[in-house]
């Protein structure tokens, strides 16, 4: 039994866990978590082994590459259709390995956390079944080597998201949020499907025929170049459309905040660490395709950075603790796409990994907070929780520092790399906006800390007396997540200039960056551009933190600052800022715009079309029927029942026949 043969187990174990729990879970009651958790644990072990082998180079060389190690396993032939054959197989290279680290580790920790968080829920078994189904879909997505399998997994992940967001289906808002997520995702999926069809058309134009293998199809399209029937620019944008839907980029971002209706472990797993990263993974996997269409990459970068600042601006005024984190996720995803768009693929994946860990930590921590204050999610009714829930407080503080980008925690390294690369590749506007986003990020995260953990408690006294720390099964995952939040940046980002993650991912991306895009490869200048940027990013982070402290208070070690809500109110009422405040609070009215466009205008169009269908189409058909009936009614009047009328008919017939014979046969006079 080689390690390679264990690869299919990565997807079979979660699938089996789902099937078993779905079938007999109800009867297992409180014990329903054992099978799913153990399945994921086993998958985690296998994944870690494979990852280790791949990243250290112990794995065999991949076909078609001189420096990429990994495993390419063929599982079965799915669609044998004459010349067009679709195979299902798995590809594990360094990129997949990085994703596997994030997906399986956070997946496992979320499973363990859910044992405590969902313990009082009657749908306990259902939750674990769905979680396992999701793990199956996500692992299939990152392991697949064929576009069609990716698409299947893509849709499955969307389905699991729907099931889990609407887990408390009796709650109307949850059901609506689940529908919204699915529908908005679907819009993006249309683009993705069109992209896959375009790939089929393009690869079918080559002599070897169409192929759905990701690597082979991209290479074939690059060979064809301008001979592609559908230009690569269009194909790249279509694929990006799918990524936009799944990773909630503008304008398909509207579903992610509403997705917070689901249980907090769901938010942590799906909407912070795994599913929303699928879009980033997709673009990274097709990096050569995008690199062949630089204009598409600019569009990606523009949309990404715009989403980043849009979401950050909204997060500044939200009062629901989970919403703040949701918009934060949107903002960081935007930064990742900005990185992809400027050509800093490695930086994007780096940020994906660090963000997965500290955002997962923040979400699970917020879940612990919500659990402590007995299902209260509004920060205006929290405050001063630090002494009561110390472990949660400590880990969330670590997470906040990490996301704010303060060295030496993880977020600093990845965020700084994005900013540096974008500046070096010439996208100074991305760097500028990115620095501003970093400031906003630091600000709203410490606003969250201030409102939640510092100052005085603003909720009812009855709740205050019952606040307690979460059980160990919930706090241990928090601690375990805090460790990579501190050290992952150091581990992956050093040594500066030729970081470990750079070494890992170079075989994947160097063709795109060096040959297709010809991006400048400058040496790391600690006392030049890079040093200035480090200074700049640390400075803006510090400014953000200090501003937050001044408005919302701080209670950190020897630092004691009071919260000043009246100052906040005063500033947000100033003429120019008042509009911004309202816009931010209302999420820039995008939901209202969508409602107007699709519900109202779309509804009117649909009503008009329905009128057309009813009156014109059905009317025509009915008229034909009426015509027949009318003609019948008219003809019926010939049957009078009177012999003389019939005799007249005979006479007329006689006249007609004789007359026509006379006329036609001529008069031989």
């Amino acid at each position, binding site marked *: 039994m080689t390690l390679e043969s264990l690869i299919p187990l990565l997807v079979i174990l979660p699938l089996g866990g789902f099937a078993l729990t779905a079938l007999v879970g109800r009867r297992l009651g409180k014990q329903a978590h054992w099978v799913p958790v153990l399945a994921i644990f086993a998958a985690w072990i296998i994944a870690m082994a494979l990852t280790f082998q791949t990243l250290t180079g112990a794995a065999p060389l991949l076909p078609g590459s001189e420096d990429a190690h990994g495993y390419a396993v063929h599982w079965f032939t799915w669609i044998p259709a004459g010349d067009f054959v679709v195979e299902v197989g798995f590809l594990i290279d360094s990129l997949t390995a990085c994703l596997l680290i994030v997906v399986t580790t956070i997946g496992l920790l979320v499973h363990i956390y859910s044992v405590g968080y969902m313990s009082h829920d009657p749908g306990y078994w259902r939750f674990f079944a769905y979680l396992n189904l999701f793990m199956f879909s996500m692992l299939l997505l990152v392991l697949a080597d064929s576009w069609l399998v990716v698409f299947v997994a893509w849709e499955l992940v969307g389905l699991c998201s729907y099931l889990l967001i609407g887990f408390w289906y009796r709650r109307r808002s949850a059901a609506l949020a689940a529908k919204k997520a699915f529908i908005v995702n679907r819009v993006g999926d249309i683009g993705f499907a069109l992209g896959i069809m375009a790939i089929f058309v393009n690869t079918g134009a080559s002599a070897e025929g169409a192929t759905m293998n990701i690597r082979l199809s991209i290479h074939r399209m690059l060979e064809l170049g301008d001979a592609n029937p559908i230009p690569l620019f269009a194909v790249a944008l279509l694929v990006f459309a799918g990524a936009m839907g799944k990773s909630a980029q503008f304008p398909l971002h509207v579903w992610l905040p509403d997705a917070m209706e689901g249980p907090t472990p769901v938010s942590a797993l799906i909407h912070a660490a795994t599913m929303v990263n699928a879009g980033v993974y997709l673009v990274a996997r097709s990096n050569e395709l995008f690199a062949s269409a630089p204009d598409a990459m600019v569009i990606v970068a523009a949309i990404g950075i715009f989403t980043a600042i849009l979401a950050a601006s909204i997060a500044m005024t939200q009062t629901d603790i989970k919403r703040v984190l949701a918009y934060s996720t949107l903002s960081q995803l935007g930064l990742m796409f900005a990185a992809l768009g400027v050509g800093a693929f490695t930086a994007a994946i780096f940020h994906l990994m660090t963000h997965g860990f500290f955002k997962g930590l923040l979400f699970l921590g917020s879940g612990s907070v919500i659990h402590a204050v007995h299902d209260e999610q509004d920060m205006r009714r929290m405050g001063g929780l630090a002494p009561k829930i110390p472990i949660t407080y400590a880990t969330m503080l670590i997470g906040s520092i990490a996301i704010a980008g303060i060295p030496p925690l993880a977020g600093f390294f990845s965020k700084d790399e994005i900013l540096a690369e974008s500046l070096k590749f010439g996208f100074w506007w991305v760097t500028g906006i990115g620095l501003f986003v970093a400031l906003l990020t630091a600000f709203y995260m410490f606003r969250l800390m201030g409102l939640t953990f510092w100052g005085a408690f603003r909720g009812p006294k009855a709740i205050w007396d019952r606040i307690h720390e979460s059980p160990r099964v919930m706090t241990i995952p928090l601690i375990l997540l805090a460790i990579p939040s501190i050290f992952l940046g150091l581990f992956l980002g050093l040594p500066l200039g030729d970081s470990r993650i750079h070494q890992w991912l170079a075989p994947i991306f160097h063709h795109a960056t060096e040959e297709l895009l010809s991006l400048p490869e400058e040496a790391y200048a600690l006392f030049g551009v890079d040093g200035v940027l480090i200074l700049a990013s640390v400075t803006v982070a510090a400014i953000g933190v200090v501003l937050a402290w001044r408005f919302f208070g701080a209670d950190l070690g020897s630092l004691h600052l009071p919260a000043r809500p009246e100052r906040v109110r005063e500033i947000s009422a100033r003429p120019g800022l008042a509009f911004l405040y309202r816009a931010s609070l209302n999420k820039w009215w995008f939901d209202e715009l969508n409602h107007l466009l699709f519900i109202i205008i779309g509804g009117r169009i649909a009503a008009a079309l329905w009128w057309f269908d009813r009156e014109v189409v059905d009317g025509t058909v009915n008229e034909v029927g009426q015509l027949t009936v009318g003609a019948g009614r008219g003809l019926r009047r010939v049957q009078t029942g009177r012999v003389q009328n019939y005799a*007249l008919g005979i006479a007329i017939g006689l006249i007609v026949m004789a007359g026509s014979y006379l006329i036609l046969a001529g008069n031989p*006079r």
Partner: protein
Amino acid sequence: MRSKILPILLALIVLGAVLSIAGLMLVLLGQDWEDALFWILAAVMLGAALLVVTMRDIIRCGLAMIVSFMALAGIYVLMGAPLLGAAQVIVYIGAISVLILFAIMLTQTKDAPSRLVFQTQAVPAAIAAVVVAVLIALAVSATDWAELSERVRLATSVMSRVLFEQFVFPFEIVSVLLLAAVIGGVFLAKREPGGPS
């Protein structure tokens, strides 16, 4: 009193007019007397036929029909078939017309004068009749009949020989047919025993 004398007077005047026209034709125009006779008989026959189909009172229609048959008998004689002319008078006038008059008597209704004479389809019927007549006239005049220039007078003995030698079978069949018709007629027109009169 007046209403009874007036029609008779009218009929006499018409008869006199016709005869004088005939005499005029004979004397003034020097036509053959057979031709004049043909015209007179034809006029009488067609005129009477028109009266049959247009008069309101059915009994008067029946009487006009008798006049028409009479004229037709005359035409038969003119054509050289005197036996047929005699048969026409005996059968049609003597039997059928009497039968019709009896039937009229048996089916009289009380509200005689105010009824409509014609149906709603009278006008199309008139047009159709005219067109039929025109068609026949056209067809007839357009055809080249292989005919004798002179008609042949038929001797009665020849006809009787043909009747009883060649046509004896149809002759007997017709007898049976007449018997069946008589029996059928009696049966159909019989009153129900104990039914309404």
